[in-house]
């Protein structure tokens, strides 16, 4: 197991670690929230995901400096954590349907139509293979092909292929979700 990111008990990060991590946080927090929001569609839940991602990132990159690796890591971790959250939601929805429990009412700022279409997108995303959902979320949160490639550890040339397949799969899933 790779334990290189763990700080040993009794050891401490370099003195500059905390300011460096705060700078990293301030730069990367907005894109990380945007990625999580693109998946979850709820600002509060997206910020909760972002918090968890940065807490975990501190374990791995206590002194991230200008590390491209740290930037890539938090972005892909945001996509995965948000996708995990909506997969959990899918399980909850199924449980609710089976138990006949009522769905909570829409909030004041959210119309029923908005919620239904957002729920359909979340459902379709949660059914896609992990890699397909991740490439979609990263690219459509505004990352360039090079940034997506760096985050997913693939060649830039592969991003187009992955995107094409993922977008085609998303469209089919949306049609399936709408039919049910």
């Amino acid at each position, binding site marked *: 197991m790779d334990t290189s990111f763990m700080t040993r008990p009794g050891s401490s*990060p370099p003195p500059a670690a905390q300011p460096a991590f705060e700078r990293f946080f301030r730069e990367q927090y907005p894109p990380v929230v945007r990625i999580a929001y693109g998946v979850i569609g709820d600002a509060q839940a997206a910020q909760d995901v972002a918090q968890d991602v940065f807490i975990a990132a501190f374990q*791995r990159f206590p002194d991230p400096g200008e590390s491209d690796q740290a930037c890539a890591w938090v972005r892909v971790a945001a996509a995965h954590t948000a996708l995990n959250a909506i997969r959990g939601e899918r399980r909850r929805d199924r449980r609710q349907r089976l138990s006949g429990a009522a769905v909570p009412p829409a909030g004041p700022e959210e119309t029923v139509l908005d919620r239904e279409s957002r729920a359909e997108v979340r459902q379709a995303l949660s059914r896609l293979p992990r890699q397909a959902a991740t490439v979609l979320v990263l690219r459509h949160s505004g990352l360039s092909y090079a940034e997506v490639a760096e985050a997913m550890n693939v060649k830039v040339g592969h991003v187009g292929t992955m995107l094409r397949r993922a977008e085609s799969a998303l469209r089919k899933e949306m049609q399936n979700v709408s039919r049910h």
Partner: protein
Amino acid sequence: MSHVTSQELRRLVDEPMAVPDRDRSHLAGCGRCQAESAEIAENAAAAARLLGSPAPATDVDLEWILVSERLRQPGPAGRPAVRNPWRGPRRLANVSVSAGTAAVVGVVAAGAAAAAALTTVYAPTHVAPLPVSRSDLSAVESITHIGTAQLTGEVSPSGSRSLAFGELSWTTAGRPQQVSSIARARALTGLALPAPATLPQGVGAPDRVMVQPRVTVTVRFSQSAGPGVGGSTLVVTGGPVIAVRYGSPPGSTGLPTLAIVAARRPVASSTGASARQLETFLLSRAGLPSGLTEELRLLGNPSTILPVPVPAGMWEQQTSIGGATAVLVTDPDAFASGVIWESRSGVVYGVGGLLDKEDVLSVARQVG
């Protein structure tokens, strides 16, 4: 010539300049590639429509405070459910209990050590009223040696003074200056301050627009200052500030009638003492009236609230400006009123003058 790959056809949608010329030439004359390209573009547009949500508004200062607090906490708060995305879930499932425990202990140790460096502890997001009496203000002045004269007078570019529990020093990014217009003040400070289009009756044109650049105040607590704060350094930044004073119409009293102030909210960073420890330290100062201590405790989370002192005898009520919580203070004789609020972008606004509350609110709503 072979057909254009689907990889290049997809990239053509987002980054056409990255696609080789030969592929674009081929596409122009190939019906099969054109049909595939159209389908790919359609799928890409559908995905963009479904997933391209606008970014939610975020308060990075506040979020950093929350993350810093969690980094200091042992237990589940410091152990989020985030898998390492660069490793497979099967391998993660095999992590032994001892390794997991080591990770948690490591985070706690790292968090505790990190607390020794400068980190944000105060970034208010909203205002709240704080009732104060004349004796409360005198007590605060005698503890901090900072009173109305220091707060309202011109700030010297730098200086320091001794406190019972350490040393206070300050520097400014420049001297306060009078500028020609609100637009000029906006350009110098980067603060959003629209000039109200409609002014209440009896209010003349702006007769003075002042700009105070950013001020940084540093408090170095002595080692013996107290538990949690001893040896810590607290750095508070405030401003820049724009203050606009309005006069009277020509031929009338000539007295100032209205003032509008906009300031970047204060933000505090500490080298170790948390917001709670600082609050506990300040509230335990000898000489601080017990009533004021109680009112400060009742304010709630010390990291996110900007207290607005409301002198005894004034009427105070909570209202809303531009969707933000605002504190409205009025003189019982309706001789003067003022309102203070913090916008979602972290700018604190104040509007006040020799006006009744309806007039003050009408100006505030044009500003906020």
